[in-house]
């Protein structure tokens, strides 16, 4: 019957989102942003196909240039890119900082959107109020 399979689909959707919200609660306490560069002679590797960052990094084709980990208990770890003389590479650093800000904004919006979608799916299942 169509309505049974539909209910299953909605239930699966709601369950998955609920699981995701759970994941958020456990994982949201930390945010990581990694910025890599690659030498020009390796660029072709990345033009077509998927990037497996961990594998490529292990193989030495990528260089981790900046890294930020923010723990929402107040700790933050930041690796700042420097040139050979010890000066900060400002172009990479500015880009990295902008990405950190972008990731924070994206996370906030995703939490809100997923929470609302899960709530509406639960409403459709009649498991919460309808307003």
């Amino acid at each position, binding site marked *: 019957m*169509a*309505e049974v*399979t*539909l*209910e299953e*689909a*909605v239930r*699966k*959707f709601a369950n*998955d*989102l609920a699981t*995701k919200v759970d*994941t*958020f609660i456990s*994982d*949201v306490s930390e*945010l990581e*942003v*990694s*910025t*890599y*560069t*690659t*030498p*020009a002679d*390796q*660029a072709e590797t*990345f*033009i077509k196909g*998927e*990037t497996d*960052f961990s594998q490529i990094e292990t193989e030495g084709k990528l260089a981790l*240039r900046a890294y930020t980990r923010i723990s929402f208990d107040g700790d933050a770890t930041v690796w700042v890119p420097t040139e050979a003389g010890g000066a900060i590479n400002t*172009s*990479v650093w*500015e*880009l*990295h900082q*902008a*990405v*950190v800000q*972008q*990731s*924070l904004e*994206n*996370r906030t*919006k*995703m939490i809100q*959107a*997923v929470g*609302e*979608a899960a*709530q*509406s*799916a639960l*409403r*459709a*299942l*009649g498991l919460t109020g*309808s307003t």
Partner: protein
Amino acid sequence: MDEGRFALTGATLTGMDDLFGVWDVPPAAAVQFGAPAEPAWRVELPDSRAEARAFLEQKRRALKRGEAHLAEAERRLSRVAAGGEGVSFAVGGPEAELQRALLAMEEPAAYAPDWRADADRGKLFQRWRAFLDEVRAFVSRYAQVETEMAGTLIGRTTVGWTGDFEVLLGPGATAEELALHRESVRLALQSRIALIRLLTVVGTGAAKLALRLTVPGAQLLVLPAAWKFVRDVLHELREWPGRQ
């Protein structure tokens, strides 16, 4: 101006091929076996920076317009759910179609064929189910955005479910080009959020519509009709923007 391209691969979205006018989604038949399991946006920018900026600005406006259209669809759905006062039930319009679907759900079986057995409605149920499954998979995975300009990679960003970012800077990419990549990422992620919001509008609207119905399980049964309504309104507003 040579044309840019904002293509989504690794995902099909049934009935939403031109979501908010931002993505080019390959038709389901074109999805090849072995395609990337993760959704990936491939942004091919025009060769000149000025044209690339204009291309992304055009996509940004399309997304903003799509978000406004979704908000309008939400308002119109609420008005139908509230009883339809002041609602235009123009023949063939989204409101009339929805009203017809709601009435069909309430008609006694003795006077009307089983609406669930109706071929069109059966197809709508299947499409809604497929869409729900696709969105569930779509939002559960990593998202990858890569930006190319003149055939050269300028940036690739992988975004994890909880928001962790890994960014690969293309060799030799300038600060301005990297800013273009960042804007590509923002548009991709924002359009994904808009898609999730569309589901919220459908679910919330269906719950309100169900209050008007006496058929058991109405809040579930009305979901496909609510989804169709939202799609129809989005389509109408895109084709006839003056109606908003």
